[in-house]
């Protein structure tokens, strides 16, 4: 949500696991994804399917995710349809990249960390932080 102004001039669709957050920030029509993590395999599989369906339906040119697993599934689905994909690891991960962040180094076109000391060649890159 803190990055919204970067997206203002594009046709943007938001997907979130928490509809209240979208409403709180004045975003209408956000898609809901089931929340999931690596400890919940069945829910993760369900979330993956919902994400895939969403991406197939919307056919975005670009998929950007700030995490976590549900966002990562959107990145994977984005690859399937030929979208450009960008992972932005949460600023909360100051010690090491999240697990999905590490996977994104392989699966997303670009991967950003918000901590300079975590950046390395060729990925993840550091290009500033929301703070």
């Amino acid at each position, binding site marked *: 949500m*803190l*990055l919204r*102004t*970067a*997206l203002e*001039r*594009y046709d943007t669709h938001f997907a979130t696991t928490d509809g209240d957050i979208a409403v709180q920030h004045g975003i209408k029509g956000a898609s809901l994804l089931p929340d999931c993590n690596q400890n919940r395999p069945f829910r993760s599989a369900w979330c993956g399917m919902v994400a895939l369906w969403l991406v197939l339906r919307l056919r975005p040119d*670009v998929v*950007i995710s700030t995490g976590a697993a549900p966002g990562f599934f959107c990145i994977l689905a984005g690859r399937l349809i030929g979208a*450009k994909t*960008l992972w*932005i690891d949460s*600023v*909360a991960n*100051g*010690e090491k990249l999240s697990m999905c962040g590490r996977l994104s180094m392989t699966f997303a*076109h*670009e991967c*950003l960390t*918000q*901590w300079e000391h975590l950046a390395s060649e060729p990925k993840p*890159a550091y*290009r*500033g*932080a*929301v*703070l």
Partner: protein
Amino acid sequence: MILVTVGMQLGFDRLIKSMDEIALSLDMPVIAQTGIGEFKPVNMEAHDRIAPDKFEALVKQSQLIVSHAGIGTVLTAQRFQKPILLVPRRADLGEHRNDHQLATASNLHGRPGILVAMDEAVLHERIIEGLAMEIAPSVRSESSQRLHQSIAQFIDTGRL
């Protein structure tokens, strides 16, 4: 009002105790979310946990937030343009598993709206500084501007 928070998961008695002492000499109310600490404050209003929506309402009302060095609270403070004073938890005092809060605090030190007190000895003077701090609305840090530009560039060109 000054809002103190150490998150909901772990106690942070060193900070809560110091704030309770300092609260006596401040001419404004202090409200604290203490987590599961043992120390019971007497000079400030204290709650083990405050529900997220209530917490947000308190942030809006506050003049300064005093917090452990948790990123979540820093983001909340920035969202409501409130100055925040960070006191990092220390692993050697059993306040956290490791010293990542020390790293967070030194990384964030000096950014707009963020103050750091590495230990409680300087807490009082930092609070005075924090209360005097003005945060200009909608000032975006250089780092944040850079991130925004980089994202726009990725969308336009596919490269960072």
